[in-house]
């Protein structure tokens, strides 16, 4: 603690000195101004978007006869406007978290394989393919999910329900391919490349000295990974996962295609239907009336807040052990 404050003090003192000594060259000044300008511009744009969303959302929130936070209905354009975000929040968070749980271990596994196990040429090829996959547009994943994966999942869903129905997640009265589980798997496949390619980059940055230290203690390859690689890459892996989670939370088209109709809040992952913020907006915005659009904007605002909270939570986790790299 003391050393930190000392250091800060020293930096501050130095700052003051260099500022006095600065000759104020034109290039420095221009660069400083443009950097400052970009920063301010970014904040202004963010604030403008937020203000716009809030202004547009207010009429619907005024008209809402149901509780906006707890209602599961979504009938903003009815004579008695009633809508709430409960089901959307549930569907969004459940499908995204499930996607993250499915994708992260696989993505880290792929990254480890590429960085430490695969022979050089295979590693290069695989890395290239993973980077390419990250660039595939989500409509492609959505169509693939609907045309190819959903029919396959019909059978899988029936199987899971019949043989593992005693697990509550796989229970329920009706099951089908167009369910939250299918949507989560498609989401997981979508976010896997981005998580994998970022974690791979981080693994490749582990200092050689740390790896050699572990090897010299008699660590096997897996033990080297556990001792020197994973702890070093921890904050990077969290950031990568959060990027993936952000993409899953905001994903519109793939989820809208895969899931059919809305169905209430249910933990039965195999039950057909389900809804998320983004899918709901994509499915209903075009046909929505004035209040309907305003209600969708309000829901968008909530999604924005959720994403923000997720990012802040990730930052908190990362900084908790900051002193350890």
């Amino acid at each position, binding site marked *: 603690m003391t050393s930190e404050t000392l250091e800060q003090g020293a930096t501050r003192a130095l700052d003051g000195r260099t500022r006095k000594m600065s000759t104020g060259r034109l290039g420095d000044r221009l660069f400083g101004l443009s950097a400052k300008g970009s920063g301010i511009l970014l904040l202004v744009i963010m604030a403008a978007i937020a203000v716009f969303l809030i202004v547009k959302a207010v009429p619907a929130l005024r008209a809402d006869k149901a509780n906006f936070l707890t209602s599961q209905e979504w009938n903003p354009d009815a004579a008695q406007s009633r809508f709430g975000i409960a089901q959307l929040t549930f569907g969004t968070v459940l499908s995204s978290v499930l996607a993250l749980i499915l994708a992260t271990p696989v993505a880290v596994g792929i990254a480890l394989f590429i960085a430490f196990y695969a022979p050089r040429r295979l590693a290069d090829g695989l890395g290239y393919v993973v980077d390419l996959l990250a660039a595939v547009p989500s409509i492609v994943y959505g169509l693939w999910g609907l045309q190819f994966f959903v029919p396959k999942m019909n059978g899988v869903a029936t199987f899971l329900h019949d043989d593992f129905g005693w697990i509550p997640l796989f229970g329920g009265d009706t099951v089908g391919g167009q369910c939250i589980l299918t949507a989560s798997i498609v989401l997981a496949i979508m976010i896997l490349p981005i998580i994998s390619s970022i974690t791979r980059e981080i693994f490749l940055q582990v200092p050689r000295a740390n790896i*050699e230290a572990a090897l*010299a203690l*008699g660590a096997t390859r897996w033990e080297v990974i556990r001792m020197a690689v994973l702890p070093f890459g921890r904050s990077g892996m969290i950031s990568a996962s959060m990027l993936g989670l952000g993409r899953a939370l905001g994903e519109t088209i793939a989820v809208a295609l895969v899931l059919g109709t809305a169905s209430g809040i249910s933990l039965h992952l195999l039950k057909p239907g389900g809804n998320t913020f983004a899918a709901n907006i994509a499915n209903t915005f075009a046909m929505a009336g004035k209040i309907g659009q305003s209600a969708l904007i309000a829901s968008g605002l909530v999604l924005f807040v959720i994403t923000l909270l997720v990012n802040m939570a990730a930052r908190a986790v990362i900084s908790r052990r900051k002193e350890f790299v």
Partner: protein
Amino acid sequence: MAKRIEVSGLNAYYGKTRAIEDISMTIEPRSVTAFIGPSGCGKSTFLRTLNRMHEVIPGARVEGKVLLDDLDLYGPDVDPVAVRRVIGMVFQRPNPFPTMSIYENVVAGLKLNGVRRKAQLDEIVEKSLRGANLWNEVKDRLGRPGAGLSGGQQQRLCIARAIAVEPQVLLMDEPCSALDPISTLAIEDLIASLKDQYTIVIVTHNMQQAARVSDRTAFFNLAGPGKPGRMVEIDETNKIFTNPGEKATEDYITGRFG
């Protein structure tokens, strides 16, 4: 626990280039052997062949024999991981694990060996840190990051980490080259006190240091420009510095080198 090392006909390669050529020597147990010689002559390479760390570099390989007492370390059914568990190594740049606390750094090797009992770990941590002359400086902050220590303390932490598993041999590659004179002295004292228990090999570019800490000294040199490194001679440290057997050694230690 300290064991004798007997090397014969050892060559080491990086890809197609041979870095060291035909080295044979005996390293006595419970003594300090120093390797000296101009930089680039293969001291580090040779040291790393002694605990099979050389081969972790892609394309690197070793020919020849290294006997640890009776066991050929390069024998067909010898596991390099097992070799490294009994031959510890300290590197030129201190390399504590940055994500670990001081305590965790010291027990890192023990954890690999399956030691899990808290009381036993505590005891070994104290013993190793005392052994590395670091205990008094860090005993109140064992939970703090190892990377937060000064360079000299970090290097002693790395020594504590290496001796915590009670290796049979301790290899040190220029352990003081990144340190200030006071830390260097601390580590030299440490080496002197460790030699009752361990077989110690130390690479150093500092001839006074070799003279101060070692019982025997080996002089390495390049066979010629672009040629692999070789060992010129090995003898009692006293003899090497007062009355070396080879002209090349004499030129080197008197500074008439080149």
